[in-house]
């Protein structure tokens, strides 16, 4: 799939922002007044910038409000509702904390649950697609939620050891997801034989493409960027999003500035993770264009 900058920014920043809101809603840290103002500003800034970035993926963003109408079937529509509901509930909690010095735990808990549901909704936009076997798996929402929870914890959770534990779990889950994802396409029965219905007659290979140039499908779904750098990107991903934040939390003095830098580096790692998430995902339509041909016919 084409790793479009707009959707990488969208999923990375909004996920981290809602992760922060999750912890703020649970009362980590228990803050009011100006301190609360800055915490909520960072959370809202990340979430809103992320959600705004998603509009740059649209061909006709002026009609974006229509995306709220189909929540009965569409995860994209549900995600839109969940994000607005979360932002609204947490706005109430933020107002009370900042201006009234009041924290209503129940309101925060509702906001925390909605925050996680929003991240889950984002992940389900991708998880629901049977056409992309790598995404169509329980590991997708689990990893999206793990990034949000662990990323949010970097800035908010004391003692730091709890945040470190969450980052370790995140690293493990990401590694498991990569492992499962590598063979996801092959585990499915779909190949050029089932795509054309001709597989029962012998091995099938793409003989001639339908056109000499490119098209939307090839650019969007059969897009192949240089995957040979995937191993390096994974190192950057784990290094920035897990190892370096842990090092900061373990070795540096525990204050908000150290945690802020750790979070910024973590987000850079999330960008790498999402780039891989899109770039390594293969869509079944690529079969029609001769991607992933059986070895038997390729070696002839």
């Amino acid at each position, binding site marked *: *799939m084409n790793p479009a900058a707009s959707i990488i920014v969208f999923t990375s920043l909004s996920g981290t922002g809602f992760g922060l809101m999750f912890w703020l809603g649970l009362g980590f840290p228990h803050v009011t007044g100006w301190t609360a103002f800055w915490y909520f500003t960072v959370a809202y800034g990340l979430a809103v910038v992320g959600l705004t970035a998603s509009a740059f*993926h*649209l*061909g*006709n*963003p002026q*009609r*974006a409000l*229509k*995306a*709220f*109408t*189909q929540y*009965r*079937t*569409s*995860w*994209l*529509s549900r995600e*839109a509702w969940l994000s607005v509901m979360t932002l609204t509930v947490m706005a109430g909690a933020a107002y009370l904390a900042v201006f009234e010095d009041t924290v209503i735990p129940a309101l925060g808990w509702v906001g925390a649950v909605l925050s996680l549901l929003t991240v889950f909704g984002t992940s389900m*936009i991708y998880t*629901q*697609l*049977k*056409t*992309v076997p790598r995404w169509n798996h329980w590991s997708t929402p689990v990893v999206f939620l793990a990034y949000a929870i662990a990323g949010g914890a970097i800035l908010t959770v004391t003692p730091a050891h709890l945040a470190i534990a969450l980052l370790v779990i995140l690293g493990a889950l990401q590694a498991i997801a990569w492992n499962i994802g590598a063979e996801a396409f092959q585990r*499915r*029965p*779909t190949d*050029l034989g*089932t*795509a*054309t*219905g*001709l597989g029962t*007659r*012998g*091995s*099938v*290979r*793409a*003989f*001639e*493409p*339908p*056109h000499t*140039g*490119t*098209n*939307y*499908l090839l650019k*969007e*779904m059969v897009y192949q960027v240089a995957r040979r750098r995937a191993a390096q990107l994974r190192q950057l991903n784990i290094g920035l999003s897990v190892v370096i934040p842990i090092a900061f939390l373990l070795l540096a003095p525990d204050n908000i500035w150290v945690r802020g830098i750790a979070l910024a580096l973590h987000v850079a790692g999330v960008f790498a993770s999402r780039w891989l998430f899109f770039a390594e995902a293969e*869509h*079944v*339509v690529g079969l*029609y*264009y001769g991607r992933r041909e059986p070895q*038997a*016919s390729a070696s002839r």
Partner: protein
Amino acid sequence: MSDLPLSTKRKLGLVIDLDTCVGCHACVVACKGWNTENYGAPLSDIGAYGQAPAGTFLNRVHSYEISPPDAPTQTVHFPKSCLHCENAPCVTVCPTGASYKRSEDGIVLVDESACIGCGLCAWACPYGARELDAAEGVMKKCTLCVDRIYNENLPEIDRVPACVRTCPAGARHFGDLGDPDSDVSKLVAERGGMDLMPELDAAPTNKYLPPRPRDAAETSAAPVLEPVAAEAGGLLGWIDRALAAMPGA
């Protein structure tokens, strides 16, 4: 609405005969022509006269080669457009309701005035039937020529999709696949019409008729003739003998 109808009164669709298609791409051109001038935004071309032309098409013809284990290879031309699935995954993912499946005839359409161009429906389609138009930013797909098949301003013979009307080989058939007595349903029953990627449960309406088995005569070449003269004579024979007498031969 992006809810799918529980059932449709009719199931209009295409039956494509892979045995008959000659891969001439006439259906591609007819489709592009009709759908550029009619329903919705025109199908744009990007850099049509440049070095890397690209454009929006609702129908494309691939060609595949089958290598049976015990027979010569076979080339199959393979037109592909929207299959108007009964369980259309493109419709349910649509956040705006722009994509919908008609309950009266099962045609899957896009209301372009409601399409935000998010592209999720194209991601959800296994068949590559949807293309986001680069100029208009809205999703384009086969309409089954909804503006032809019910169009009483056209002569009756033209009230079929443009691809079907134009096919010079008669490889494309249009009709109601929900009616077991329709010509297309009988054709599907007779020839073993098949679904593409049935394992993905989209339940496509369009069916593909597999190529018929080839005649046995095609599988055996003419018998190899015995060599007429084993030993060459004349000048060539002399050269051959002279070369054979050289050291190291």
